[in-house]
């Protein structure tokens, strides 16, 4: 974990207000899939806090973040030009652990699709089945990168403009019994995670979900980002963001 200045290599609009930010990092630390970064959005308009953004992709010099220009901070971030320096802390949190899993299902909804790609990137020798959902085809900005790297990729959109017109959890449910997954990694909105919990509750397959909460520091010091778990409050930033689905109270 380092606190450093990263340089914007590129910061391109993909579609629907979603941007792809490539940052070059001096003294790149070791990163695990499912971890995130706290990224400064500059100091305009009274902004102080860094924003938590998942690591989408990384190599030994750069990290790639996919983010939506949602509010004040990420909108300011989207204006950052090439070669600007940004304060960043990374890598943060407990990501997805591959252990000895051979066949992993990835279930992602909305922005939750973005961090799942880091799993594939870090562990190429696993058989992945990806279930990716979004509002419509233009919000599915990175589905292409999963194709070819996964045994199967099934897409769901609310309007059927890409893949099937259904919920991503429904697609997953269809396949659950079929492929003998060793583990399920998921990231997405709470309703999706809840549906996933219902679907998987009678299986023994371990399910790991990446949680989201408003954060202050991002590195465990302020206790503002807690989520409820079966063993009391835990910090999403330091004890998570990835938790066993049976541990967190959704």
């Amino acid at each position, binding site marked *: 974990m380092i606190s450093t200045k990263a340089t914007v290599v590129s910061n391109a609009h993909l579609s629907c207000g979603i941007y792809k930010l490539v940052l070059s990092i001096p003294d790149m630390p070791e990163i695990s899939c499912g971890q995130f970064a706290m990224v400064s959005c500059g100091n305009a308009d009274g902004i102080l806090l860094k924003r938590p953004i998942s690591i989408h992709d990384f190599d030994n010099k750069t990290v790639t973040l996919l983010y939506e220009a949602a509010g004040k901070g990420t909108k300011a971030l989207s204006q950052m030009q090439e070669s600007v320096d940004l304060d960043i802390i990374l890598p943060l949190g407990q990501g997805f652990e591959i252990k000895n899993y051979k066949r992993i299902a990835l279930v992602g909804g909305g922005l939750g699709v973005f961090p799942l790609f880091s799993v594939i990137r870090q562990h190429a020798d696993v058989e992945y089945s990806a279930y990716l959902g979004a509002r419509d085809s233009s919000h599915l900005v990175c589905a292409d990168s999963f194709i070819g790297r996964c045994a199967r990729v099934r897409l769901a959109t609310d309007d059927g403009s890409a893949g099937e017109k259904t919920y991503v959890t429904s697609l997953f449910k269809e396949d659950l019994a079929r492929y003998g997954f060793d583990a399920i990694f998921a990231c997405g909105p709470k309703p999706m995670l809840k549906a996933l919990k219902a679907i998987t509750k009678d299986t023994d397959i371990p399910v790991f979900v990446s949680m989201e909460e408003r954060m*202050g*520091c991002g*590195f465990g*010091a302020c*206790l*503002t980002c807690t989520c409820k778990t079966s063993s009391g409050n835990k910090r999403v930033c330091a004890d998570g963001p990835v938790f066993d689905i049976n541990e967190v109270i959704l």
Partner: protein
Amino acid sequence: MSALFTEFNGVAFKNPVICASGTFNFGEEFKRFFPLSRLGGISLKGLTLEKREGNDSPRIAEVYGGIINSVGLQNPGLEGFLKDYLPSLAQEDTVLIANIAGNTVEEYCEMAQRLSQTDISIIELNISCPNVKKGGLAFGVEPKGIESIVFAVKKHCKKPLMVKLTPNVAAISDNALAAEAGGADSISLINTIRAMAIDAKTRRPVLACITGGLSGRAVKPIALRMVYECYKAVKIPIIGLGGIFNAEDAVEFMLAGATAVQIGTANMINPMAAVEVIDGLERFCYDNNIKNIKEIVGGLII
């Protein structure tokens, strides 16, 4: 002798920069960024007698130049702290300050007594936390209440007693005087200012608790005024905090009368903040030919 060496309440500090309670947890998370021995001291996460889970999430809202938090004193409880955190903390070469909050006067006394037998150097009486229902603020608003709780705790406290004041009052200097009269060895101020954030789109409060405590740059001018007023009122040392983000801010608090400063919200935004303040003060002394930083305490030119 270092230009930043400071001493008060019989405790020696490498420098007058202390990390503020609740923004630094028990220090562990910052060891990856710098050795804790760089710090003058650490005011540890607020402790209660029993373990507390704190409030529901969201517990933080960002506002212009500040944050509002409603953590609500989540902590492992006094015994949990003594068992799981203090032993390794005590190895660190920095002054440890225990920040304590009780539901009753008796709880405060019990905690002070217990902590007096440990490696803790100073006990900071948190009678100003806006995020808990019982205790906390209840003791900290009226001068009479302050004097009597300080008096009671002091009897059980074998360590210097620092009393942390709430800014949510009409006359801070009356409260400072009350703490002094009760036997406080020093006072620290300010704690957070009660505040609220609303999301106009969802029409809901941002925090699960509706209101919380404001800290950060936005509160600095209020904190500075309060430190100045207290400095004119009391003789005991004042530890100033509220929106200190860099060495210049720290100098301003010291000019207003602070013997030492605490860094709070800034730690959360920049884990190196406290170290940068220390380095900046060092440079400030060098540039201005100041032998020891204490020369500027209360040195505001009117």
